[in-house]
C-alpha cells in the first residue's frame, strides 16, 4: 500500500457546447520521502489533478469516477473528511506568492490562524511554533519579521512564508503548483533546495507541478508526463529523461534548450513521432524581392553611450509634479545605470538578468517608448534622441521593431489578423495598391508559417504560439533591420518555444536581421546569441561572446547565475 494512491481518476468540465475531459483514467502512486513531478504543456490537466486531490475543483467541473487515497483513507468528495485533511495532512504551495498571502494580515496572524484551525495549541505555543517554522524555511530574524505584512517581503521570501504555511500543520503531503515560475533563477534554486530538504527531513510526499524540465531533472525522483488529460508516460526521472518512449515525452525532452552546448536548430517531433527539420528558406524569396537584397557589412548599427534612466516618484505620479519636492532621494530607482554597448549588423546580442535588472527598460528606450534621463543613442550614426530628449523616429525610419513577451496583450483584440499586419505596411507606404498590399500580407503570413485562412480571424482564435507568429509578421511588416525580442517565449510551452526560436533564427538568416534578444532564461540566450551582456540592478556586469561567457564567466554574479540555473543535463 502506497502513501498516496490515485486510481482511475476522471474529471470533466461540462460546458454549454461540449464536455471537456480534464483528466482521464489517471493513476499514480507516491511514497513518503519521494518527490513526484507532473509535467505537460498548458491545458494538459496537471493543475486539475492537484486540485482534485484537495477537492478544490471549480464548478461546473466534477470528478466523475475514480478514487484518491491517503494512507488508505478515501478522500473523494467527502466534504467532512476533506475539511480536516486539507491543510492538516495536505499542504498547498501556489504559483504566485504575490496573491497567495492575504495582504491585510500580518504573517504572524496568517500562520497562527492556520495552526490553531488544525492543531490544538494555545496562542503562545502557536506563536512559538510559527517562529520555528519561519526559521526552518530560512527566514532570518524570524522573531521580528513575523510581525511584518506580506508586502514587506520580497518574492522569494514570500514563497518561503507560503511554504512555512503549507508545512505548519505537520502535513504528510505537499502539493506545489509551479512553485518557482514567478521567481528568479537564484531564488528558484533556494526554494527547490528547501523543498528537497524538507522532503527528507520530515519524510513528506511532495508533488511538484511544473512546465520546466530543468526543475524536474534537478528535484524529482519520479515524473509523470501528461497530455490532454492523459498520462502518456510515467517512471523514474532519470530513466524517463534519458530514454523517453512516448512521442510526447520525447518532444518535451528534445525541445529543451541544452545548457552545455550550442545547437544550430531545435529538433522538432511531429505528432506521428517523426523528426522534422523545418525551414522557411523558399518562403522568403518573395519578401527578399520586395525588400531588395541586403548585406551585412558588419558595421555598427546601434550604439548606446552611458544611458541612464531614473524612475522616481515624480515620473510615477507625473500629475502631481508641481506639489512634490525634490528632496526625497530615497525613493529614486535607477532602472538603467550608465549602460553602454554597441550592436553590429547581423549579430544577435543577448541581454540577460533577473527581474528588475533593467533589460526591458533598455528595450523601451531604444524603441522610444520611454526617454532616457542621460546618455546618447545612435542608430546608423544618426542620434535617436535630440537635445530635448524627444525620440527621432525618422532617423530609424521604422527599422527598429519589437516582439513582446505577452502574446495575449500584444495584438489588438478588435482587429483581424489581416488588418494587424497590413496597418504598418500602409503606414510606411501611403500609396500602395490594394493588390500589392494583399501580396505583402500573404508573403508575411507565409514566412511565419501560418495559413492564409488565418488572416480573416481575430487574435483570440489563436494559441499563444500562433499569436507570437502573428506578432513576428507584424514586426516584419515595416521591413526592420533591428528586431528587439523581449522575452518572446517566456509565456510559451517548451515545444512551442523551440518552434518560435527556430523561426526567429530562420528569418534572421534569410532577411539579414540584427537582433537584440532579452531573456532571463540562460539556456535560451545561449542558443540564440553571439554575444551576451549580463545586467544586474540596471548596470552592466559583463559583456562577452557566448561560448566564452558560459565556459569562463569572470564576474561573480555571472558565475552564480550559471551555477544555479536548472540543468536538464544534470541527471543524464
Amino acid at each position, binding site marked *: 500500500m502506497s502513501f498516496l494512491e490515485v486510481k482511475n481518476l476522471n474529471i470533466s468540465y461540462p*460546458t*454549454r457546447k461540449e464536455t471537456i475531459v480534464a483528466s482521464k483514467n489517471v493513476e499514480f502512486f507516491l511514497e513518503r520521502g519521494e518527490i513526484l513531478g507532473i509535467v505537460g504543456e498548458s491545458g494538459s490537466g496537471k493543475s486539475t489533478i492537484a486540485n482534485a486531490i484537495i477537492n478544490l475543483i*471549480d*464548478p*461546473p467541473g466534477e470528478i466523475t469516477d475514480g478514487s484518491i487515497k491517503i494512507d488508505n483513507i478515501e478522500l473523494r468528495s467527502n466534504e467532512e473528511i476533506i475539511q480536516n485533511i486539507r491543510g492538516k495532512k495536505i499542504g498547498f504551495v501556489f504559483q504566485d506568492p504575490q496573491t497567495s498571502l492575504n495582504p491585510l494580515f500580518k504573517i504572524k496572524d496568517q500562520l497562527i490562524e492556520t495552526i490553531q484551525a488544525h492543531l490544538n495549541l494555545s496562542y503562545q505555543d502557536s506563536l512559538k511554533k510559527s517562529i520555528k517554522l519561519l526559521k526552518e524555511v530560512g527566514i532570518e530574524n524570524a522573531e521580528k519579521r513575523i510581525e511584518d505584512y506580506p508586502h514587506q517581503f520580497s518574492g522569494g521570501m514570500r514563497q518561503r512564508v507560503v511554504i512555512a504555511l503549507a508545512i505548519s500543520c505537520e502535513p504528510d503531503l505537499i502539493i506545489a503548483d509551479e512553485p518557482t515560475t514567478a521567481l528568479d533563477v537564484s531564488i528558484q534554486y533556494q526554494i527547490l533546495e528547501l523543498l528537497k530538504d524538507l522532503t527528507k527531513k520530515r519524510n513528506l510526499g511532495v508533488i511538484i507541478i511544473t512546465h520546466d524540465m530543468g526543475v524536474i531533472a534537478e528535484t524529482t525522483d519520479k515524473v509523470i508526463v501528461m497530455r490532454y488529460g492523459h498520462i502518456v508516460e510515467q517512471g523514474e526521472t532519470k530513466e524517463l529523461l534519458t530514454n523517453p518512449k512516448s512521442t510526447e515525452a520525447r518532444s518535451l525532452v528534445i525541445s529543451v534548450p541544452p545548457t552545455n552546448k550550442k545547437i544550430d536548430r531545435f529538433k522538432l517531433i511531429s505528432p506521428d513521432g517523426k523528426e522534422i527539420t523545418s525551414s522557411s528558406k523558399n518562403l522568403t524569396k518573395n519578401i527578399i524581392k520586395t525588400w531588395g537584397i541586403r548585406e551585412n557589412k558588419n558595421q555598427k548599427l546601434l550604439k548606446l553611450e552611458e544611458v541612464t534612466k531614473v524612475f522616481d516618484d515624480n515620473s510615477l505620479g*507625473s*500629475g502631481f509634479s508641481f506639489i512634490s519636492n525634490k528632496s526625497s532621494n530615497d525613493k529614486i530607482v535607477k532602472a538603467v545605470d550608465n549602460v553602454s554597448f554597441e550592436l553590429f549588423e547581423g549579430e544577435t546580442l543577448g541581454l540577460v538578468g533577473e527581474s528588475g535588472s533593467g533589460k526591458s527598460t533598455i528595450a*523601451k528606450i531604444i*524603441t*522610444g*517608448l520611454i526617454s532616457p534621463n542621460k546618455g546618447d543613442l545612435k542608430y546608423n550614426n544618426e542620434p535617436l534622441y535630440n537635445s530635448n530628449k524627444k525620440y527621432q*523616429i525618422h532617423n530609424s525610419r*521604422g527599422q*527598429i*521593431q*519589437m516582439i*513582446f*513577451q*505577452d502574446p495575449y*496583450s*500584444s*495584438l*489588438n*483584440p*478588435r*482587429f483581424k489578423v489581416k488588418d494587424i499586419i497590413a*496597418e*504598418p505596411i500602409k*503606414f510606411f507606404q501611403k500609396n500602395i495598391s490594394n493588390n500589392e498590399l494583399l501580396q505583402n500580407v500573404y508573403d508575411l503570413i507565409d514566412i511565419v508559417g501560418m495559413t492564409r485562412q488565418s488572416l480573416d480571424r481575430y487574435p483570440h482564435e489563436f494559441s499563444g504560439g500562433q499569436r507570437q507568429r502573428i*506578432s513576428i509578421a*507584424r*514586426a516584419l511588416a*515595416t521591413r526592420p533591420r533591428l528586431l528587439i525580442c523581449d522575452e518572446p517565449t517566456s509565456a510559451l510551452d517548451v515545444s512551442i518555444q523551440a518552434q518560435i526560436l527556430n523561426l526567429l533564427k530562420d528569418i534572421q538568416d534569410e532577411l539579414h536581421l540584427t537582433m537584440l534578444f532579452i531573456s532571463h532564461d540562460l539556456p535560451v540566450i545561449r542558443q540564440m546569441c553571439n554575444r551576451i551582456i549580463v545586467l544586474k540592478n540596471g548596470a552592466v556586469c559583463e559583456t562577452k561572446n557566448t561560448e566564452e561567457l558560459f565556459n569562463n564567466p569572470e564576474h561573480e554574479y555571472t558565475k552564480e547565475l550559471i551555477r544555479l540555473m536548472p540543468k536538464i543535463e544534470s541527471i543524464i
Partner: protein
Amino acid sequence: MLLKTYNKIYDTDIGYSFFNSKLAVISSTIFFIILFCSVFAGIVAPYNPFDPASVSLMDAFTPPVWSEGGSFSFILGTDQQGRDMFSTMIYGSRISLIVGFASIIFAMILGVFLGITAGYIGGRYEIIVMRLTDVQLTIPSILMALLVDGIARAIISQSMHDEMAIYVLIFAIGISEWPQFARVSRASTLVEKNKEYVSASRIIGLSNILIMFKHILPNILRPILVIATIGLALAIITESTLSFLGVGVPPTTPSLGTLIRFGNNFLFSGEWWITFFPAIFLIVLALSINLLGDWMRDALNPKLKKR
C-alpha cells in the same frame, strides 16, 4: 433564414446570456415596441394630436373606454383639448426618446473624447479635465439644465425659443451627463494604454490620434455602452422633469413630462387619466431601459461570467 440567424446569435456568449435572461428579453421587447411605435407614430397612432384639424374641443375630457362615458374612438380617453391620450403619448414618447438619444450621444462624444485624451496624454491636461469632471459632478443635472435653459431664454427671443427649445434641452442634459463617460473612458484607457499592442503601434510610429481612436476606442466600447444605456433612461427622466417644471419642450409639441404636468392640474377634479397614463408609460420606458442596462453590465463583465 430567420431561424439560422437566431441560432447563430444564440451560439455566441452574449446571445446565449441574452436569451437565457427573462428580464433581458422582456425589457428589450417592451423597449423595442415603444421605440417602434414612436418612430412610426404616424402609422401606429389613430390620430395626429399635433394637427389642430383632427382635434375637437367637443371631445375634451372623455374618460377611458372602460369608464362610464368612455368611447372606443378614444381608448385611453382625451385631455383638456380633446386630444386622444394614446396618440398624444406615442407622439410624446417620440420627443422624449429623441431628446434622450441625442443628449446621450452628445454627452458620449464629448465625454469619451475628453476621457480618452486625458487618459492617454496624461500630465497637466489630464488633471485639468478630471478636475473639470469633478466640478461638473457637484452640480445636480436638473440645476445644470435649468441654468442652461435660463441662459438660453435670456439670449434667444421668445418666438425663436419654442423652435430652439428641443436643442437647448439636448445641450442642457448632455452637458450634465458627460462626466460619467469621461471618467469611465479615462479609467479604461489607462488600462489599455499599458497593453503591448499599444506599445507596438507606437513603435511602428502611428500618430497618437490614430492610436487613441482606432486602437484604444474599440477596446473600451463595452463599459461605455453600458453607461450609455443607463444614461439614456436618466436622460429621458431628466427631460420629463424639466418639461414637468415647464422649462422643457413647448406645450404645442408635448413630451411625456409635459403631459404629466397638464394632467397634474386635473388630478383632483377627477380626470385622473390625463396624468396617470403618461406617468405609467414613462415608468415602463425608463424601467425597461434600466433593466436592459443592468443585464448588459453583467453580461459584458467577464468577471461575473458564469463558467
